[in-house]
């Protein structure tokens, strides 16, 4: 663990800390209309020291590509969301630029705008995937009873450490250096080189501290860097572009909202016969990453349940909102919320306690998943399921709270509170789907030097110190060198290989594996070849990892972790607020390289999941007003110091480490909402389940 004092005594870490002589600021001018043709853009009279740039000032291509989809750098002919960048103001005083921006006159011809998300909006359908397993229609007809439910999740702000920012300056006469907190530095390089129409070798990207990014800095920093680069090209001066937090809240990407409909056929005993799932994802104005997200959601759509007759439809719908994005999990959290909330509803309709229902319907190790591959693990054999039920006393509490619910009378004593307990079971797949890793071609290099000093070179951006420690411990263990002599090279696209985006737990799985592979190769050569020895490895999947990305068949991920979560709540009948009394999380993630760090990561995930499920609201996205309820983002208000118990299961000795960054975010919301459902006696089917929403549901039935 690094020293607190050392962290403070270092100076420049963030782009907002950079000050260079001769530096200019860049401020983004944004569209005020959600959907319109741009007739003209007229800046105010500018002082001599300021410039206004539009799409016409872009020397290269006016687009940033993200896994095959594009987003304009500066809108020129049309705007597709309020807040879309349409121009850049450049000058020495940021405040002056902000004032000038309010005086830029834009003439629009409004076009029809879609701001409310409609799951059946065929006109704005972007993508439509279908997967069928078995004979779902037939099985549904034969079902004893059918349970339906529609589940909605709202957008979530990433709330990364530093708001979006970029700094660009000339390095040599014909090179530029870009400072960016991107999770994907080589993507920034590619974006800037395309926009400026210069070879990539004339751009170098240097990573600044990304803090906790949660995929909010996956591709958007490339857009911001492109803006700064355009300003640099136009002025020849160092350019600093830093969003205010408010600007970031209002204009940067969010977790994509979703609407998921479940129709489930049950047999007489309440067990699964058929599942029909319709997923609709609101991609905002540009459907970036939607393919990967939708397919991952399809893989997760039926949860970890055993059902041989399944039809899943997944669609992306464009709306005139800020482009949506992945958020730790690429959509699987939305899918698990829906299926686990639905599972609670099924168990109630079937009149079977939820834990019993799950025991009958969850896949066991070796059984076939909906993608046709075998379930590699389950939570039963490793003991995770038994642990979580006994630690949380789930069975007894659930039964007791059910009795309370049934006995509750109107005009109850307001001092008494309603209690509930909910459970959810989820998984997390590491890395991109199927052969995505090979397509990305992630590379890592390790170098062993004469003084037994080792250097890890990778463009991967570690999300925390724990990952860095894991890498260093891996090198230390295999090469038997002192950890203090291991260095992780600063991320600089001139000097490190392209390791792909730091997302989907790739740092823990893919990058760690590549480091291991490099070290093993060095170890084999160590005493035969002179030092220094440097080995570079590129990710490859084994032939056994067969995955058909169109049919969604085979093994989708190189590895998978699983978890069960239980949340116990108490509702306040006077205020409609929900207090959390306890959280339990049982995780099977293979080999845990750093248990202490793993616990912290999971706990952070618990809070991120709770924020999404309970309080964080972004109503301004659809209201058109620019207000932010900052209070809803204070983490401490969610809990009154309840217990969070976390335990690890599974084969710790031999199995490869699996990602866990997203697993709590996936598990906690459904468990939380299921607990509130029990406490209130109303089927909560949306998040965030704010007190206002709880009240609305209580009133609906009265």
């Amino acid at each position, binding site marked *: 663990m690094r020293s607190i004092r050392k962290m403070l005594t270092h100076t420049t870490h963030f782009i907002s800390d950079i000050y260079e002589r001769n530096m200019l600021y860049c401020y983004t001018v944004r569209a005020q209309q959600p959907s319109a043709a741009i007739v003209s853009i007229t800046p105010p009279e500018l002082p001599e020291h300021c410039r206004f740039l539009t799409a016409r000032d872009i020397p290269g291509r006016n687009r940033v590509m993200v896994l095959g989809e594009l987003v304009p750098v500066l809108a020129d002919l049309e705007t597709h969301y309020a807040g879309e960048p349409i121009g850049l103001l450049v000058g020495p005083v940021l405040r002056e630029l902000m004032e000038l921006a309010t005086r830029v006159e834009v003439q629009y011809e409004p076009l029809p705008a879609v701001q409310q998300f409609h799951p059946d909006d065929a006109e704005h359908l972007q993508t439509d995937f279908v997967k069928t397993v078995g004979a779902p229609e037939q099985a549904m007809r034969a079902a004893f009873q059918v349970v339906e439910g529609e589940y909605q999740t709202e957008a979530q702000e990433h709330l990364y450490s*530093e708001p979006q920012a970029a700094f660009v300056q000339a390095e040599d006469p014909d090179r530029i250096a870009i400072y960016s907190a991107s999770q994907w530095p080589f993507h920034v390089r590619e974006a800037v080189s395309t926009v400026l129409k210069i070879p990539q070798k004339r751009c170098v990207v240097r990573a600044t*501290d990304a803090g906790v990014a949660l995929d909010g800095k996956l591709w958007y920093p490339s857009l911001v860097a492109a803006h700064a680069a355009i300003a640099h090209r136009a002025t020849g001066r160092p350019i600093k572009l830093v969003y205010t937090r408010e600007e970031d809240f209002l204009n940067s990407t969010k977790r994509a909202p979703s609407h998921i409909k479940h129709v489930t056929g049950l047999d007489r005993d309440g067990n699964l016969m058929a599942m029909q799932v319709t997923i609709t994802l609101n991609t905002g104005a540009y459907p970036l990453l939607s393919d990967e997200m939708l397919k991952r959601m399809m893989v997760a759509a039926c949860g970890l349940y055993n059902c041989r007759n399944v039809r899943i439809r997944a669609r992306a719908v464009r709306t005139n909102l800020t482009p949506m994005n992945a958020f730790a999990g690429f959509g699987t959290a939305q899918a698990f919320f829906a299926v686990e909330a639905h599972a609670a509803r099924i168990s109630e309709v079937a009149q079977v306690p939820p834990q019993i229902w799950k025991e009958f319907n969850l896949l066991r190790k070796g059984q076939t998943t909906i993608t046709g591959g075998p379930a590699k693990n389950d939570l039963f054999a490793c003991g995770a399921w038994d642990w979580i039920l006994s630690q949380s006393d789930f069975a007894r509490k659930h039964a007791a709270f059910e009795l309370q619910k049934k006995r509750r009378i109107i005009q109850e004593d307001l001092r008494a509170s309603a209690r509930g307990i909910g459970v959810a079971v989820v998984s997390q797949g590491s890395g991109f789907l199927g052969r995505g890793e090979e397509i990305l071609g992630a590379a890592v290099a390790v170098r062993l030097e004469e003084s037994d000093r080792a250097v890890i070179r990778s463009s991967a951006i570690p999300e925390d110190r724990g990952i860095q420690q894991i890498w260093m411990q891996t090198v230390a263990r295999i090469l038997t060198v002192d950890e203090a002599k291991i260095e992780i090279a600063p991320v600089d696209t001139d000097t490190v290989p392209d390791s792909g985006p730091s997302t989907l737990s790739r740092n823990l799985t893919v990058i760690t594996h590549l480091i291991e592979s490099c070290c093993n190769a060095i170890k084999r050569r160590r005493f035969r070849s002179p030092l220094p020895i440097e080995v570079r490895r590129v990710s490859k999947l084994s032939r056994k990892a067969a995955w058909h990305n169109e049919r969604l068949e085979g093994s989708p991920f190189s590895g998978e972790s699983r978890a069960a979560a239980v949340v116990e709540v108490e509702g306040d009948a006077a205020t409609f607020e929900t207090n959390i009394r306890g959280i339990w999380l049982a995780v099977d993630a293979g080999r845990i390289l750093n248990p202490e760090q793993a616990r912290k990561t999971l706990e*952070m995930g618990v809070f991120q999941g709770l924020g999404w499920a309970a309080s964080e609201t972004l109503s301004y996205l659809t209201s058109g007003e620019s207000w932010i309820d900052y209070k809803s983002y204070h*983490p*401490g208000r969610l809990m009154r110091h309840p217990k969070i118990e976390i335990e690890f299961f599974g084969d710790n000795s031999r199995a490869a480490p699996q990602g866990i960054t997203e697993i709590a975010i996936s598990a906690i919301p459904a468990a939380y909402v299921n607990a509130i459902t029990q406490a209130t006696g109303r089927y909560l089917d949306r998040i965030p389940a704010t007190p206002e929403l709880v009240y609305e549901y209580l009133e609906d039935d009265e």
Partner: protein
Amino acid sequence: MTVEFNLNGKAVQVSAASESLLVDLLRREFGLSGARPGCMRGQCGNCAVLLGGSLTRSCLLPVFRLEGCEIVTIEGFVHSKEFTDIEYGFERAGMDPCRFCISSKILVAHSLLLTELEPSDLDIERATSGVWCRCTSYSSFVNGIRHAAKARKRRYNERNF
């Protein structure tokens, strides 16, 4: 306007437009970047400094407010004995905050311990709600404060002994 105030123990003078905020002045005029511009509305807590020894948000301090004041930023605070309590507490708890919010977390912890050496759960919850960041596990922050409190009590007892 020109104002004179005490910054990290030194008398300083700054000339700026009256609406200039301390959070910007610190980094622009004095090269002190520990207090971070965030929401600029006093909500996120990332711009924390000490004003007359008390925790304050530097994004809510315009320059005219500074005349005659005593400001301590994290860069000054690290040289104090009080910092060593927090340093000990955070490291003992295994905290690993990101560099963006660490200054604020340290000053928030210090501010709480100024008034309460045995903070209750509620005290800590209120204090920690003042810093936005997804970077730290909540329980390690809470434990960090508790360990820091013990360290401070120990130091006070040693001093009095």
